[in-house]
């Protein structure tokens, strides 16, 4: 449990910190450009990768809060006693899909590392792409643990 809460804290801190950096770098680029400097060469690339990281970290946070966008018909149309079994199936499905996504993202990262792809000058691209497998693995973990808890009958 302590690892879990430390992990959550880290996720949140990363998300908030990343957004701060993203805002500052974006603003700095505009300032520099308007003052007649070229701006950082790597600034725009950094911002774009920052958005990717925010997308994944935000999605992980959304999984924790159960805030992913979904068609919420079952809850409105089915009687309450079906809610839990339906949620178990839905969570298991989501965990599986994200497991696949994590696995194939990992193979994408591995290939990119083998090819020696670079971004932002000569940084290895795989370092920045690593968020894909890590993010999807975390989402998968959230849904899997949610699913198990539902089966065990524990309220989230």
């Amino acid at each position, binding site marked *: 449990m302590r690892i879990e809460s430390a992990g959550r804290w880290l996720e949140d801190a990363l998300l908030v910190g990343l957004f701060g950096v993203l805002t500052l770098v*974006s603003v700095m680029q505009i300032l520099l450009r308007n003052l007649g400097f070229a701006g950082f060469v790597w600034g725009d690339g950094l911002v774009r990768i920052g958005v990717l990281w925010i997308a994944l970290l935000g999605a992980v946070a959304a999984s924790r809060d159960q805030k992913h966008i979904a068609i919420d018909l079952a809850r409105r149309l089915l009687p309450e006693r079906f809610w839990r079994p339906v949620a178990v199936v839905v969570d298991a499905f989501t965990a599986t899909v994200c497991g696949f996504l994590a696995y194939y*993202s990992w193979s994408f990262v591995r290939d990119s590392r083998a090819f020696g792809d670079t971004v932002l000058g000569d940084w290895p691209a795989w370092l920045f792409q690593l968020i894909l497998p890590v993010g999807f693995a975390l989402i998968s973990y959230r849904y899997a643990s949610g699913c198990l808890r539902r089966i065990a009958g524990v309220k989230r």
Partner: protein
Amino acid sequence: MILLGALVLLLAVLGAPIFAVIAASALLGFTRAGIDLSVVAIEFFGIAETPVLVAIPLFTFAGYLLGAGRAPQRLVRLSQALLGWLPGGLAMISLATCALFSAFTGASGVTIIALGALFMPALAHAGYDPRFRLGLVTAGGSLGLLFAPSLPLILYGVVAEASIDELFVAGVLPGTLMLVLLAGYSYWRNRHLRGSVREMSLAGVRDALIEAKWELPLPVFVLGGIYGGYFAISEAAAVTALYVAVVELLILREVGWRELPRIVRESMVLVGAILVILGTSLASTNYMIDVEVPQKLFGVIREYIDTPATFLAALLGFLLVLGAILDIFSAIVLVVPLVLPVAAEFGIHPIHLGIVFLAAMELGYLTPPVGLNLFISSYRFDKDVAEVCIATLPFLLVLATCVVIIAYVPGLSLWLLS
């Protein structure tokens, strides 16, 4: 394979996250085509190759931060001072304010929660009947969809590879049409309410203007900056986010530093939920283009439909159903890549298509079974969902009329561009 596809669809209806459903269909599709599945990750990485996307987290954060301070109260006071003298004026004020606010906060429910709570008692005090009030506030929650810098407009631009600047301009007249017709309805419906009219006081206007002096430059930055060609979209977003942060945290100090991480996290949850759908849909779209779904779709449609007018009618019907079950963001990333080429064959301008698409999807916020505004309103004002539906119906009909006009008068969307 078809069985698996049907299963995935069933899971979507049962409430599986849309992004997982899209990812599953992409994985299935590519498996069938015998393509290595890491293509899904490669496509998802496309998020890092689309510069304008940075506008989405920045504008979303600015909207959430604005909602956390006292900006909504000031906005209400200012518009009341400006329009309070008009019969039915308070209803029109509510509509206009909701439109402005939801353009910034992306129709995510923040408007109903932040502004609705202010307008409900004010409208009650002015003698508007309960059903009208409820419908007005519910419909107001997504009125800003066609005005810059709404997220759906930006997302449509990204997905359709259309100019977001042009979309921002194109949305102005259609969005105004919605406001004007709703204002007309409000006036007609409350024509007996002459008693609530207040004297306009110049001092009142001046005080309200001074009070709102920090928020007033915002639309100027965003709209003036973008429309005037001074800022790119992502630059306007960065300036807006920084400006709102400085005003709320340093100048007015209505939001404490301690609340900041929570607000950032909350807004980034929404951003993550939208972008993860976009990322997975990049892969599924790629698959559908690969197997030529748009061409096949066009072939089928061509058999039954041969004029742009009938195509638009069919499209509106389809979007009405789509909007009733799917949220606007998923609908954009899933459907636009398919509809865009077909519409182009019928000679429909991509910018016009975008405005029609979003206007029609705006109705989806107010239609059962999944209309977001209905549920937020029902939750916020503690009313039965069925009651909210009935209260919202007249507003829905007015908006539907607007959508038809917007679809069949392309000039409304395109005139300002030329």
